[in-house]
């Protein structure tokens, strides 16, 4: 059974220095903004962060980077028009970047949750992102060996949770949430709504509660037209 925290601050209070933290979201969709803000407030530093991007503008992950809390970032697309805090930290040599093709990033996170020790993927073969990596020709096609990305924590935004931790997401805000929840030792999830156990149709659960450790309800959450079905 997950813990239900009363605030984002309480939800992230256990995050220690030098942790690896998966942070969900693609653009603003599915980004656990209140949990990231709370992580900034709690002061944990020396973090390894895994996210599709490396922060945008002056909010969320960008502020964590600005404050030099992030020692290393593993992501697919750091450089954006408004990634100035990452750009500055990177050019100053104050953040380590591991650049991973987006699908390899997703599959490596999935592998961690699924107990896979590593896998061969065709993506990236023959490119500079495969340099130094083991390669293998399988059925005539070049493949690169990629390893799982395990993490101490995942910060995830979902739409609705029940008290058993089962999660529903909303549209393309689903993105990295389900695989990150499964890959972390402890998953911390912010949701718009918490409903009683039994209120969600078991056929439609996207993240089973086994992957969820802490839930916190934040604000009015996402639009409410997608209600729990039963």
């Amino acid at each position: 059974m997950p813990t239900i925290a009363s605030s984002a601050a309480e939800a992230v209070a256990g995050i220690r220095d030098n942790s690896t933290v998966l942070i969900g979201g693609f653009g603003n969709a599915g980004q656990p903004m209140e949990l990231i803000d709370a992580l900034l407030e709690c002061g944990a530093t020396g973090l390894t962060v895994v996210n599709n991007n490396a922060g945008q503008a002056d909010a969320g992950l960008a502020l964590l980077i600005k404050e030099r809390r992030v020692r290393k970032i593993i992501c697919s697309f750091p450089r954006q028009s408004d990634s100035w805090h990452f750009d500055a930290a990177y050019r100053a040599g104050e953040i380590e970047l591991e650049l991973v093709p987006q699908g390899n990033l997703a599959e490596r996170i999935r592998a961690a949750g699924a107990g896979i020790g590593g896998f061969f993927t065709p993506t990236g073969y023959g490119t500079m992102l495969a340099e130094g990596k083991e390669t293998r020709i399988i059925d005539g096609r070049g493949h690169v060996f990629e390893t799982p990305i395990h993490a101490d924590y995942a910060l995830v935004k979902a739409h609705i949770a029940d008290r058993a931790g089962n999660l529903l997401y909303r549209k393309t805000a689903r993105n990295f949430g389900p695989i990150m929840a499964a890959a972390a030792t402890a998953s911390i999830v912010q949701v718009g709504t918490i409903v009683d156990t039994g209120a969600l149709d078991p056929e439609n659960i996207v993240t089973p509660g086994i992957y969820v450790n802490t839930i916190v309800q934040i604000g009015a959450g996402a639009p409410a037209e997608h209600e729990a079905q039963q």
Partner: protein
Amino acid sequence: MNTQAENTTGTRLGREELAALVAADIKAGSFVNLGIGQPTLVSNYLRPEQAVTLHTENGMLGMGPEAHGDEIDPDLINAGKIPVTEMPGASYFHHADSFAMMRGGHLDVCVLGAFQVSATGDLANWHTGAPDAIPAVGGAMDLATGAKEVYVMMGLFAKDGSSKLVEACTYPLTGVGCVTRIYTNDAVFLITADGVRVRETFGTTLAELRERIPVPLEMAAVG
């Protein structure tokens, strides 16, 4: 293949005409991913009767047109982070499932921009290789590697006049031997096992192309 009978038309294609040409070439019933930028224009020219299903790598099949006004939902965006809409028969899935769909070869066509394409279909479209550039790859390598057909849309010549269709890419590669067609404003090229074939030209000739492009070129057999 409906354009093969007339291999040359009088004028260089505009941006919109090129998008329309790519759209017309996509087979009915295809599952397609359109890359960010110029390839996105193709969606404006897909006809409903083509029944093309659009994939966006951030977790959706059945993506509809860009959302406007009240349609905008911050939870429903495309890979370029633009608000979009949902078509009947759409489905949502997480990132690992979405890229499994691409990597597993289930998309019929992916349309991408490019810095360079080699005569053997190597693609360079993610990194200029400039020493001070901060690299960002996103889903480019996954798209290039996964789809059954990779169509590139690009200008044929760089600002300095050099050909972007090259013997071997000088920019860092996105994928090896993955491009199957190149759509440019001047001509359409097919990358085949026997070399590069010119399917049609627009306001230019094979002879002119041969002068400017450092790759052996032959006209495609008209079929």
